[in-house]
């Protein structure tokens, strides 16, 4: 995995392909590499859909190895949704396959001078890029079927749907799963629109003839991986809760806490929560012959995904994630799992971020375009986006734009990106991360939790404002580092409670690369990534005034706890003081 594949889509006479060594980017992977390339090579003030922006697709440092959980793919660029630097993250097969093909990153540069659409085919014996206008406006499922018929079923695909081709700011980049379905998405920030602006419809990856990446010290790597897997399997979250119910296990808990944003963040409880919970979803999946425990990529031992069948027992979509069920469920007042699953399928098929679209539809409902709870209307609004009607293009531009167009004050966004499924008034600590993340409102920006890194109790009182700030800071640092490894963030829970599992992860990195990393090295890596991202954003025009929640979160109490967001601006400004 020592080379970068650069494809200049704007070259005279058609796209050109160059392979080059990692050079100054050596030692970086995943988010570390995408953010390094974007921050060094993309002019911060460029238009995100211009030829100057670059789309960087990078597997993690341990992707393509025999290491468990190492199949996350990072997709980076300047975001058309937020205007900030962006890293969106996806599971699925492409990360493992791309790494085994030897690529640390694919960089799509420039912009074609015609309106032709291209596909890129990467095999062990070389790279081809071909014009294929027959793919125009194909939804992701149809596109992948077409690729399968042309290149066989041993491939993995990275693609965009019609939303990406239309360069909508809520467009995702799809990755195929183990069944070769386009169900995994780098969803956030409109990365699909940037791929669309490069006019690349699909990247087909075939690693036939390649081998698993070999560590420098195979015995130590094998031992560390074994300890890592044992740690994940014995932990109640990664060994029991997530495999049994998926991430949607959170619905009941967040709802009970009064932190479940409902009816476009108007209240913190949803009466229909139990009807769409992870427990109910898993039961329904099994009853209909689907699967409640399933991995999104080979090498996953947590297996928090599943397969959802419709009422006739036929495949409809993968098990919708918690964020999706919330966004299209409680936030829109919808308590019908079949309808939510249907919307999830169409989000995937058109290539849309489920969080952004759920938040947008809730804003549209508040604007009177549909009634809260009207599932059929919600589905029709998604089709408006897929068809590219004028209304659809407004909705596909996200919650902030939709709120502006329809004159709605309550737009739950930071830096233009919709908040996820946790109300920051009820859980103030997550509000700190929403406000200050380099990516806009993002629950995964401060997700990784490892007591070694957090040093909880060692510095300041966690109950004080300073403690909340320090907690968010350390969470963001740890997350940036883990996002670079290719590891799924769900490993974080075992790392928090079991220092030996965190050590096993560091041992895997050391054994694979022949390094001597420590917990402090991981912290330094996280800090360096955040520093690059912050500098890019500052040059793009972002100031501390952008690190705030929308004003109504400070003034409108949310039931049932009737609390507002109380963290002071001057405290938010301290998050990146280290």
């Amino acid at each position, binding site marked *: 995995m020592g080379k970068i594949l650069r494809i200049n889509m704007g070259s005279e006479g058609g796209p050109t392909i160059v392979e080059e060594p990692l050079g100054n980017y050596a030692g970086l992977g995943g988010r570390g590499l995408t953010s390094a390339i974007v921050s060094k090579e993309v002019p911060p003030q460029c238009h995100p859909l211009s030829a100057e922006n670059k789309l960087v697709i990078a597997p993690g440092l341990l992707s393509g190895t025999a290491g468990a959980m190492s199949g996350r793919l990072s997709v980076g660029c300047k975001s058309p949704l937020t205007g900030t630097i962006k890293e969106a993250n996806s599971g699925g097969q492409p990360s493992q396959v791309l790494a085994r093909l030897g690529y640390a990153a694919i960089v799509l540069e420039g912009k074609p001078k015609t309106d032709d659409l291209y596909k890129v085919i990467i095999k062990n014996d070389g790279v081809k890029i071909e014009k294929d206008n027959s793919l125009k406006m194909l939804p992701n499922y149809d596109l992948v079927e077409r690729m399968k018929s042309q290149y066989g079923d041993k491939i993995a695909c990275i693609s965009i749907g019609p939303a990406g081709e239309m360069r909508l700011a809520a467009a995702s980049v799809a990755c195929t799963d183990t069944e070769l379905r386009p169900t995994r998405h780098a969803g956030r920030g409109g990365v699909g629109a940037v791929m669309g602006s490069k006019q690349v419809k699909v990247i087909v990856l075939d690693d036939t003839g390649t081998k698993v990446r070999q560590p420098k010290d195979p015995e130590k790597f094998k031992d560390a991986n074994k300890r890592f897997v044992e740690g994940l399997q014995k932990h109640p979250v990664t060994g029991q809760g997530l495999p049994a119910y998926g991430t949607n296990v959170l619905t009941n808990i967040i709802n009970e*806490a009064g932190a479940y944003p409902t009816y476009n963040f108007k209240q913190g409880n949803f009466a229909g929560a139990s009807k769409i919970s992870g427990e109910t979803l898993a039961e329904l999946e099994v009853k209909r012959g689907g699967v409640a425990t399933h991995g999104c990529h080979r090498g996953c031992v947590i297996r928090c995904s599943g397969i959802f069948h419709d009422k006739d027992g036929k495949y409809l979509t993968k098990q919708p994630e918690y964020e999706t069920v919330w966004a299209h469920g409680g936030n829109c007042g919808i308590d019908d799992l079949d309808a939510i699953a249907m919307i999830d399928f169409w989000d995937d098929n058109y290539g849309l971020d489920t969080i952004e679209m759920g938040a947008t539809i809730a804003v549209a409902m508040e604007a009177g375009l549909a009634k809260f709870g009207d599932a059929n209307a919600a589905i029709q609004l998604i089709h408006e986006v897929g068809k590219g009607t004028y209304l659809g293009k407004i909705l596909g531009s996200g919650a902030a734009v939709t709120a502006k167009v329809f004159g709605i004050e309550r737009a739950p966004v930071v830096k233009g990106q919709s908040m996820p499924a946790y109300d920051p008034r009820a859980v103030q600590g997550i509000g700190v991360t929403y406000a200050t993340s380099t990516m806009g409102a993002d629950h995964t920006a401060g997700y990784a939790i490892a007591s070694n890194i957090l040093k909880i109790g060692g510095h300041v009182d966690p109950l004080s404002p300073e403690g909340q700030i320090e907690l968010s800071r350390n969470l963001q640092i740890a997350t940036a580092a883990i996002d670079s490894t290719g590891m799924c963030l769900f490993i974080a829970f075992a790392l928090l409670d079991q220092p030996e599992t965190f050590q096993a992860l560091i041992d895997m990195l050391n054994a694979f690369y022949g390094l001597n990393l420590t917990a402090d090295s991981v912290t330094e890596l996280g800090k360096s990534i955040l520093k690059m991202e912050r500098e890019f954003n500052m040059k793009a025009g972002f100031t501390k005034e952008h690190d705030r929640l929308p004003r109504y979160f400070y003034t409108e109490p949310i039931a049932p*706890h009737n609390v507002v967001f109380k963290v002071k601006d001057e405290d938010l400004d301290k998050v990146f003081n280290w």
Partner: protein
Amino acid sequence: MIFDSLSWQEGVEFKVRVGCSVRDFLTKHLEIPNDFIENRIAIIFLDGSPVDDIDRAIIKNGSCIAMSSQMPGLVGAAMTRKGLISPLRTSISYDVKKEDTKEEVGIVKVKLFNTLIKELGQVLQSKANAN
């Protein structure tokens, strides 16, 4: 009456003596062993607020107690009793006040979530029916 998964998620009512601590309610009325409480019930809500100190939180007539095993996600993990990152949700944490601890017979709603439905549902079923 048989309580299924949905019933436990939405809450099953118990007629019990109230005015006791959450721990006493769990161990004495529901007869859940202390080691199970410590090792398996990671999250406890009392009337919608996550509880850290189950010895000082008081069950009243009309209370709702909800229980869960350990949860994923930053916010899920923050709900853990006395967890490392529970300070993230201080604004909604159960606030132990000087409660009226009057003992009386009352109704308490019990919710079980996730793995606890299987682990406790059947045991509590008979106690609920015996009301």
